[in-house]
């Protein structure tokens, strides 16, 4: 039981995440991909006569059930399957974050940075609003996210997905190493 409550190592979690691919293919002929759910939400709620959102989102509603499930899964895991320990991070990262005043490791997301009050600061605005915008805009522009391209796309050996995955990494490496250190000092 204790090993369930502890964080799961990559060689357990990774292969299980990989099994999502055949699970969805065999359950209903669906390609694994999460970011399109954001498009379906737009199509369902605010289509605004935009061509890109003019399609029958109900035919894709499986994707909305999937993300609803992810939300519930997050709830179950945090309520029932977690030990009370904090997130253990690499000492180099811990040292760097301490210099920005980030010392709370009790949640998966640092509460000192991600909270409603910090939305009015430049730091909080860029992390949450600008960051979120890039995630939504970028994934749709790229035609997929980590699940759609990096896992499903690579699993079916599609080279455009490899290009997209490399670009995800390049963008992330650049921001994490050159932009975030400046931003978090604010």
């Amino acid at each position, binding site marked *: 039981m204790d090993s369930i409550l502890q964080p*799961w*190592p990559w*060689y357990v979690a*990774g*292969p299980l*995440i*990989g099994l*999502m691919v*055949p699970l*969805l*293919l*065999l*359950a209903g*002929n669906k390609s694994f991909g999460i*970011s399109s759910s954001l*498009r379906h939400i737009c199509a369902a709620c605010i289509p605004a006569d*935009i061509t890109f959102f003019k*399609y029958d989102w109900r035919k*894709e*509603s*499986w994707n909305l*059930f*999937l*993300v*609803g*499930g992810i*939300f*519930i*899964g*997050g*709830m*179950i*895991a945090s309520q029932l*399957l977690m030990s009370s320990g904090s997130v253990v*991070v690499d000492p180099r990262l811990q040292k760097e974050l301490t210099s920005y005043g980030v010392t709370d490791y009790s949640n998966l*997301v*640092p509460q000192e940075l*991600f909270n409603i009050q910090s939305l009015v600061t430049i730091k909080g605005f860029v992390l*949450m609003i600008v960051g*979120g*915008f*890039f*995630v939504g*805009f*970028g*994934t749709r522009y790229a*035609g997929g996210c*980590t699940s759609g*391209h990096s896992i499903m796309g690579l*699993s*079916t050996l599609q080279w*455009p997905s490899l290009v*997209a995955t*490399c*670009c995800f990494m*390049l*963008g*992330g490496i*650049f921001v*994490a190493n050159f932009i975030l250190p400046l931003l978090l000092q604010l």
Partner: protein
Amino acid sequence: MKNKMITINNNVDYEVKSLDVNANVQEKKQPGIVYLIVGILFGILLVKSEVVSWFRIQEMFRFQSFHMYGVIGSAVAVGVLSVWIIKKFNVKTIQGEEVTFSKRKFSNGNIFGGLLFGCGWALTGACPGPLFAQIGTGAFAVGVTLLSAIIGTWVYGLIRERLPH
């Protein structure tokens, strides 16, 4: 109908199956609960492996930990093997249909959008799936990030005809 044709002709987004001309859209429908359960399993995996943790994402992009590379790498390995087995032995879905795959065409969006998403991933510490999982764990402020991501998708839809693809 005209509008729909335009979307199909310029389709660079292979995640909406009903718009993909090559896809078999005559498939039998599964009740939503099936996907809800798959989602719950995936959400538990995302949280328990800590891949939805902002800290793990920072470690990954700073090359300070193997964890994320191990998770994604082994997930892809299992995915490749599964798809190979499905194709090789012509495994059918539980409803007895042939499994279909859509071939993705390259677009410059893979590069530009990919770079933008990478920037957002490093800032928020989350891809779209983990956003939903993070909110589930009680990080309610991430709801703002999700809302912003929905707006980002909407703005992309608004200006996509003017973007290089």
